[in-house]
Each structure stands twice: as structure tokens, then as C-alpha cells.
């Protein structure tokens, strides 16, 4: 598959009173047509800022994209003017957000909010756009769509509002859908509904998806490829099976070890990642994970490892070779202690 979007050395910073926040520190990745890429990380890892930067949804000031290229269909999105960008945002690249309550306008009907994009991007008239809006609501599984078009957001439940958001996202048949933690605010049974819906829509409509989340569980059932972010860097990248089966970055390994799994017997004790993420106002020159890493060696403190290819499909930003470490094996635990 051809690459739909190519991100090169993207760097975003926030210029605040306290200093420069190094939110995204030069990330490079591709998303192919029709592919689902998950970006996993904890709060403050730069996962949302990195993706918002693609379509320049970063508030400027204080934010600024200081470096990088985003090639989408032969043009660099970072070089476009506001008018040109508007032709792409919401049209060829659409977004759905985490909180469906705050991202819908409470004083406009659902119908009006969907038709707005249709009239703007596809030059539809009122009747056409209304008909298309009903079609979209039916597509995302809202019962009695025609009647609900004139309802306001507060008349919908959380899961239904997220469906409306997805309908809005899909309204102009985007090539790329960016989903920023779309199920985080929802209950598990509703989350299952939404994940099911998005995967079904993707197979019908064939768009690429960038799915941002902190939930490693959701990613496992959904993504083709995973990018793990930490402190504004991509620390590991690869196909989902490979990353979960044999993580090669201590942070990914630490995440997988620190969450209890529903399908395994009782783990004796969880292995947390000790310590806290670094302060992005004053990021270290060393590997950002070094202070929390059980595998740390001298080189980690001297030089931050770049993202290095370790096979044809995967790369990791770590100086240490983790190829012998098992995720849930007890012998690996002893090894961790020995190294630490």
C-alpha cells in the first residue's frame, strides 16, 4: 500500500512563562492507505500534540511547530496557508475527540452540526445535506435517525454522542480519520460497541485511522501497527503482534507488565514502572526513560538512543538488546532484579 501520510522529524514546542515545553521531539512515521496505526502513551507523552500538529490544531501561541514535514498527497501540510488547510481538515482528514460532550456544540442541533461540514466542503444544499446526515446517522447505528436529527446533544447518551461524532468525522468520506482517545470516556460495553463500529466502517469505507490511546488492551484488537511514545519521542514502533509478543523497549515491556490481564491467572504481584516521567520543561540529554529503566547502562546516560531499525518491520530506541526477555516469565523478573 502506498503511504497516505508521511511525518518527518516533527517537533512541537510550547513557549510558556516557565520556559519551553518540549512536547514532541522529532518524530518520524508513515501511515499507509487503509491502515490502522495506534499511538500509545501516557498523559504528557506527546501523543495528542504530535497528531494535532499534523493538521495544525495546536494553539499558536503558545504552541509552535518548530521543525518537520507532513507530506499528505504530495503537499506539505505544514506549509499550507489557512485557506488551503481548511480544504483538507474535516474533509480529507477528519478527527474524532475524546469527550463527545465538550466537542459537540450544545446549542446547535445534531443535524445542523453534521450538515455544516457537508455544506462547506461538498457544496450541498439544505435538503441534500439533510438527507446525507440521516444516512450518516443510520450508518453509525442511531435508531430513528430522521427524528433525532433535530435533537440537541444533551438528549443523547455518551455512547450515542460518540456515534454522532463519528458520523460527523465520516461525513466527507475522509482518507484519514484521527481518533483521539475516542473511547476513554465510555464504559466498557459501550467502548466495545464503538470499537466494533469503527472497525466495521473502516472495512466498508477503507479509510486509514490513527488511533491515539493509553489503553494497551484496545490497541491489541484494533491496530495494524503500534507506535509507543514516551516524553515526546517514539520509543518503539512495529506491527501489533510483534510489539505485544516481544517488546524491545523497556518502557513498552514495563507497560505490559504493569497492567493486570483479565485472561491470565492471578499474577503474584504487578511490576510497576518506578518513578515518574521526566519534566518536559527541562528534558534530559540522556535517554528520557533511563531514570526509570531497570536495564540502564552507562551509554543510556550519555546519549539518547535514536529510533533504530531492529528488523525490516520494527524499530526501537534503546541501546540494550532485550531480545531474550520474556514479558510474563518469572525468570525474566529475576533478570530485571539482577540488572537493576
Amino acid at each position, binding site marked *: 500500500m502506498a503511504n497516505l501520510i508521511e511525518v518527518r522529524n516533527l517537533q512541537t514546542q510550547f513557549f510558556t512563562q516557565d520556559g519551553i515545553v518540549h512536547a514532541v521531539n522529532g518524530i518520524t512515521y508513515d501511515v499507509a492507505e487503509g491502515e490502522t496505526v495506534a499511538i500509545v502513551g*501516557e*498523559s504528557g507523552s506527546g501523543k495528542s500534540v504530535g497528531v494535532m500538529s499534523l493538521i495544525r490544531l495546536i494553539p499558536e501561541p503558545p504552541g509552535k511547530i518548530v521543525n518537520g514535514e507532513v507530506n499528505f498527497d504530495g503537499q506539505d501540510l505544514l506549509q499550507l496557508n489557512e485557506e488551503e488547510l481548511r480544504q483538507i481538515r474535516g474533509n480529507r482528514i477528519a478527527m474524532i475527540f475524546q469527550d463527545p460532550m465538550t466537542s459537540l456544540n450544545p446549542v446547535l442541533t445534531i443535524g445542523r452540526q453534521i450538515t455544516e461540514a457537508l455544506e462547506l466542503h461538498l457544496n450541498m444544499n439544505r435538503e441534500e445535506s439533510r438527507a446525507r446526515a440521516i444516512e450518516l446517522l443510520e450508518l453509525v447505528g442511531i435508531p430513528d435517525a430522521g427524528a433525532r436529527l433535530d435533537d440537541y446533544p444533551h438528549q443523547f*447518551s455518551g*455512547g*450515542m454522542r460518540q456515534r454522532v461524532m463519528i458520523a460527523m468525522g465520516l461525513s466527507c468520506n475522509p482518507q484519514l480519520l484521527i481518533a483521539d482517545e475516542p473511547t476513554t470516556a465510555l*464504559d*466498557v*460495553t*459501550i*467502548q*466495545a*460497541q464503538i*470499537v*466494533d463500529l469503527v472497525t466495521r466502517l473502516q472495512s466498508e469505507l477503507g479509510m486509514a485511522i490513527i488511533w491515539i490511546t*493509553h*489503553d*494497551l*488492551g*484496545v*490497541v*491489541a*484488537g484494533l491496530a495494524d501497527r503500534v507506535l509507543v511514545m514516551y516524553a515526546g519521542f517514539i520509543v518503539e514502533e512495529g506491527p*501489533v*503482534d510483534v510489539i*505485544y*509478543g516481544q517488546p524491545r523497549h523497556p518502557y513498552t515491556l*514495563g*507497560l*505490559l507488565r*504493569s*497492567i*493486570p*490481564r*483479565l*485472561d491470565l491467572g*492471578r*499474577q503474584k*504481584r*504487578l*511490576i*510497576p*514502572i*518506578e518513578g*515518574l516521567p521526566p519534566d518536559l520543561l527541562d528534558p534530559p540529554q540522556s535517554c528520557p526513560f533511563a531514570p526509570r529503566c531497570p536495564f540502564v547502562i552507562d551509554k543510556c546516560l550519555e546519549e539518547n538512543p535514536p529510533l533504530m531499525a531492529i528488523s525490516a518491520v520494527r524499530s526501537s530506541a534503546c541501546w540494550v538488546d532485550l531480545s531474550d526477555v520474556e514479558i510474563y516469565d518469572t525468570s525474566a523478573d529475576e533478570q530485571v532484579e539482577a540488572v537493576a
Partner: protein
Amino acid sequence: MTTQNSNSADVSTAEESTQDEVLLSVDNLKMHFPITRGIILQRQVGSIKAVDGITFDLMRGETLGLVGESGCGKSTTGRAILQLYEPTDGAVVFEGQDLTDINSGELRRMRRRMQMIFQDPYASLNPRMTVGSIVGEPLEVHKIGGSRREQQQRVQELLEIVGLNPYFINRYPHEFSGGQRQRIGVARALAVNPSFIVCDEPISALDVSIQAQVINLLEDLQSEMGLTYLFIAHDLSVVRHISDRIAVMYLGKIVELADREVLYENPLHPYTQALLSAVPIPDPQVEKKRQRIILEGDVPSPAEPPTGCNFNTRCPQVMDICRQYEPSFTDVGEGHRVACFLYDEVEALNEAGQPVAVAA
């Protein structure tokens, strides 16, 4: 009495286990919040049945997980047990005393024995108080701290127990990260030496890598101090990890209660089955093979719960009887209790909560 039938007194596998002393016994607890209309003359036009008749026992030293989705009444249950709300009906017997039936002075003394850890470590600590005064406040309130010096020593000891530096005593909450704040909340709960702690979603506001730190802390404290936990959470993987027994709530009622392994290996209630199947597992190989039960629709409003079984509007295995009668919450063997007509032992209840004979 609506939901539970009368053989509710001894739940669970108490006999086999070493934890054979009942610490807390909740009987048909109800917490209804009135819906009123009118400005000066407020008329009650209905009620939100947040908790609608739940019954369970908690053994000393055990962790009971209470799971359910938002709005199912799990947090309200925790608060009603601690008498932070005045329950509408039912009894909460803690260490032999019915908390719903004692005066406020006695209740205050009982509060020393039962504490709470809150969900949001940002909202539950007063930003203008130092860590020392936050953790020391319960000592002062209950007048058990001794002199100022002794009190300070005790606070420093508590900070050390929860893994914080004792020298942080004069710092303010904003100087700490979310995980550290949650540790402060734990230290505050421990200050009065409680035997029972309600943990109300103590880790859901924390990052994944920090969650494990707090879970391990709670487990360590339990084994050191013999604490009893009611662990309220929506994350089933975490609840499975930490609990001995698990109760599943749906729309104000417990639909199933069983030992941890039994519940996960042999869930009986269709809601439990759907809930477990919906939990994503961080393993792509497993995820590819899993069959999800996708529930249709949303949870009904607790102001107007459906007649019959609360789950009948979404249940994939709904039968006629489910729409007419409420299922009793019955032991189907070895302390595994379920409220669902798919199981023969479960009786139908009429609106007054009395068993009624229904032709099969």
C-alpha cells in the same frame, strides 16, 4: 424487601476460608434520591433509585470488588455504607452495630474504624492545607493524636508507610504528582487505624504505569495491617487482580456475586458475560480469537427502571418472565449468587419482593 430473599445472612465460602468473621453485613440497602419540582413548594415527583436493595457480607481481611458501569450505583453504595448519605432503607451492620440506627456521636466514633480513599487525587485534597495537616486532620478530629509532637511523628510514620518521604510534611498537594497524591489520600485514610476502607476507584485517574504502584501499595498494606477493602472500580482486570470475591452491579442492583476465579471462569449472568467479553486484553493473538458479546443500546434511567429484571431491555437471552417478574438473588452453589431466570433455583418476585409461583 424487593430484591433479595431472606436466606441472605451468610453469603460466600466463609466456612472454607480462614476469613470467617463477618465484618460488615449489608442487608437490602436502598438509596433513593428524590426528584423534586417547584421552587418554593417542592413536590417530589419521582426518585432516582441509585441503589435499590443490595445484600452482601464482607469478611474480615477480605477484598470485595464492586464492579459496574458508570451510573450503576457502585459509588453510591460505598458512600451509603459509610453513612455519607442517609440510606433510604436497609441495614448496614459493621462490627456488630447497625450504622443506620445509631446517633451521630456514636457514628462519629465508628468512623474511626472505617475510612475512604477517593477517586480523584486532585479534588480530594484541600490545596491550601499542607500534607502534614491533611494527614493529621483525622487524628485531631478524633482526638487520638496526642500532643502536637506525637501527632507530627505519627504523620511522618504514615508518610513513610505509603512510600513518601517524611520530610514532605510541610509541602502542599500541588507539589506532588497524581500517584503521590493518591498516596497522601491513602495515608490520611490510614491515620485513624481503620479496619475497613472503601476504595472508590482509587486508580482510575492515574496513568497506567503509576496504577500498578498504587495497587501494590494497597495490597501490601492489607497484608501488613489486615485491612478489609470494598474495592469499587469499573476496570475488571484490576478488580480481578485485587479482589477475593466480586460483586457485579447493574442499575442499582447486584446481579451476580462470586469468588474471583469462579466469576471469571464461569460467569452466569448475561450481563457479567457481556461485561467480561467487552474488556480488551492486551494481546493481539488473544483478541483475534475472542468472541465479543456486544450489548445493544444504553442503560435505562434509574428514575424509571424497567419492570421485571433490570437488564431485560438489553439482555441477549431475554425471556417473557424477565419482563414481568424480578429475579431473586439466589445462591446457586458454593456462595455463587445470581439474579437471573436462566437458572432454575432463581425464583420470581412480585412487586413487594415476595416469591411468587410462576408456571415454567
